[in-house]
């Protein structure tokens, strides 16, 4: 949608919206995920 966030003080830098749906299969991992870890981290945020 044509919706400018450019001038909103709270939506800059790390808070700049990404504005896309996405799927990443097999993310790059820094380090090693513990072998027993099995679950989902769910979150919601404002875009």
């Amino acid at each position, binding site marked *: *949608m*044509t*919706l*400018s*966030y450019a*001038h*909103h*003080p*709270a*939506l800059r*830098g*790390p*808070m700049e*919206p*990404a504005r*896309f*749906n*996405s*799927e*990443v*299969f*097999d*993310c790059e*991992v820094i380090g*090693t*995920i513990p*072998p027993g*870890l*099995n*679950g*989902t*981290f*769910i*979150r*919601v*945020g*404002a*875009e």
Partner: protein
Amino acid sequence: MFADDSPFAADGIASTFRIADGSCDFTARFVETPRYLANRQARRQLFGYYRNPFTDDPSVAGVSGTVSNTNIIMFNGKMLALKEDALPYEVDPATLQTGGSYDFGGGYKAPTFTAHPKIDGRTGEMIAFGYEAEGLASNAIWIYTIDPGGMVTSERKLAAPYMSMVHDIAISQNYILIPVYGMVSSMERLHQGKVHWGWDDRIPSYIGIVPRNGDASEVVWIAGPEMAMVHTFSATDEGGVITLHAAVSDSNPFPFFPDVNGKPFNPAGARTTIRKYTFDVARPQAGWQEETLFPEWAGALSRIDDRYLGHPYRYGFLTAAHPHEAMAGQRRISPMSSWWT
């Protein structure tokens, strides 16, 4: 979005990190609220100021402006994206496709549902509520208990001392605690085309205390000075004395919700610290005792380990900054907390 509007007005996007067998897959998808779908079809923003339908485009009159962006929970096998001005939206945990708004099979009657329902860590019972439950700018708070199977087991209707933002509550073993403070609105304000909330420093704050298993008529409102208790940690009670922990500021924490009398925003009053409150249920006229536990730490977004909700707890968590640990603190603060403190 207007440059002076609240960042809370932005669309909600749900995301999952699915971790198994040493790998992680990521999915992110917007919650497809009626507002999101209407904007997408029009290719422009049709909704005006935060939670003010009188500033919306006429083409979306009667269309919900909720953005489902505040919290997301799993309950009774359902994933629910939450925003306090509307019902939960059900989201498929595997695909993040939006299912639609959810009212617990019709048992939840309020039009609004908090972003911070409390699920008792031992029994699995949910205590939820909606404020502005009888329409925009109404002071009605409707409280529900919902069993772990998703069935509504009780409904209680309260009238707050005045209409305000009730973003979070706390539960102890025997009580529900409801903070009411000067983040206010009114139909007059909304008709004037303003953002939903403004800060009024002339009115007292209150903590409402309701027995978890009692009637709405048993509510006690304890009055105190100006403060904002946006998020709580949790509460416990023993012998009729309640202890509540929360992240609290002395005045308005949100610069984008301006003072109703035009006073300039006061950053010192917005500083949010960890505070402990005690209440004697039998002596509401005595007010409350307040103690700031870690005065050098400023922080927000408080919570505890959910497994202890409704029961004694030892630890709390929040994003925080310390003036003497500026560099380390900068790295530890989430961007969200920097708006709030």
